[in-house]
């Protein structure tokens, strides 16, 4: 499986660390809503098909990536920085271009 890191380009999956389901939303730390916390920690969509997930390019630029991957075929349809283009990697890239 190859993942195309927006900063580094296509790299073998062994350079990446899976961080799991990208649909989960961490409740506000001050939240007392136990159901929301439980859902965040334990409940998963687990679809057979396109799955929105987080990977870290741990053996490369170390950016966290949002990847849409098909869990049946392993086809990857999109990869983007989790935090938009504001990562240091993207900034460095932008600077090196200017």
């Amino acid at each position, binding site marked *: 499986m190859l993942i195309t890191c927006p900063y580094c380009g296509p790299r073998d999956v062994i350079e990446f660390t899976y961080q799991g389901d990208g649909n989960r939303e961490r409740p506000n730390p001050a939240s007392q809503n136990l159901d929301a916390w439980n859902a965040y920690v334990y*409940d998963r969509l687990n679809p057979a098909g396109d799955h929105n997930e987080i990977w870290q390019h741990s053996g490369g630029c170390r950016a966290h990536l949002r990847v849409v991957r098909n*869990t049946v075929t392993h086809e990857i349809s999109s990869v983007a920085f989790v935090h938009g283009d504001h990562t240091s990697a993207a900034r460095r890239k932008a600077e090196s271009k200017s």
Partner: protein
Amino acid sequence: MAEYSAFSLLANALKGNKDWKPAWRKPDPKASYDVIIIGGGGHGLATAYYLAKEHGITNVAVLEKGWLGSGNVGRNTTAVRSNYLLPANTRFYEHSMKLWEDLSHDLNYNVMFSQRGCLNLAHTPAQFDDYARRGNAMRHLGVDAELMTPAQIKRLIPALDISDSARFPVVGGLMQRRAGTARHDAVAWGYARGADRRGVDIVENCEVTGFLRDGDRITGVSTSRGEIRAKKVAVAVAGSTGRVMQLAGIETMPIESHVLQAFVTESLKPFIDTVVTFGMGHFYMSQSDKGGLVYGGDIDGYNSYAQRGNLPVVDEVMSEMLALFPGLARVRMLRSWGGVCDMSMDGSPIITTGPLHGMYLNCGWCYGGFKATPASGWCFAWTIAKDQPHEFNAPFTLDRFHRGLVIDDKGQGANPRLH
């Protein structure tokens, strides 16, 4: 029910083996049943068998989307053990072990249960202490456990590198002698035949595609072979749990599906006569009765419904094998394959009534559910028949996560890919 005996073998041999009955019929599904079990894997078939045998409930159908045994029951590496740390797990898996010890006799079907032992290797003093703790916990509950020294281990497994220059020196191990292996296909076939002979319909090539409802009660299923009604619908679909529960409108579960690979080498002369596990990574190996070394390691590590694996794990498993057994470097690998596991958030299973009215759920086996097959079926049948759990499966509820009662034997938290 002793269809297989010395006498019947001889009598059939003399008649050219033409009079054996098929091990199970191929019935068309009826319009309705008392109980429908979705999933003709080991657990679904065992559930049907014990429903009939222990509770006299025989108007039962097992619906299997493929052919019988095409799921994980026919894909696993066949290790059977009850060496857990936490009491809920130890009690449940030890109940399974006791059923295994009588299974061939009970089913009148040779499941080739072989109590060749299971040895966990320790590579650091801390790990050895941890095994001592686990062994003590097991013995408190009446399960056999023994600590072994490197010298004893070397006598048991001569090919193991226990020298100080080994990449990961062996400082000792925890052995469960009553653990071992069983012939996985025979387990499915034996339960299928036992259930069939008691009247259960085993319907292959029948995929469940939806659930029938009356208000908020499940009253049956729609399938690729038509609608079938039932008073009770039990789900035992292992790696497909997420998909099947979505058909019932349940969008999220404390489950992720991941692929686990297994490998077998060409046949060798007797090389190892126990199951051995490596403590510095995740690797385990035994030798099949045909001579192939059967081994595996970690799951691929990301959600997957593909019944095949990817190369990085192949690479990792091979290097772990060579760290333990450098002598296997030139042995050829014959085959590898993958199965889809339903990894639960605490690494322990779920066997419960619900979560919808008229529904019963058996899932979350992670990659260790083969050993559980007899107890899983036995407890699930009890739960379906009596609408309440047996004490052995009472802790394995679906709501334990939300109630803070997780059963996390490995202490890895809510990280299914680490269990």
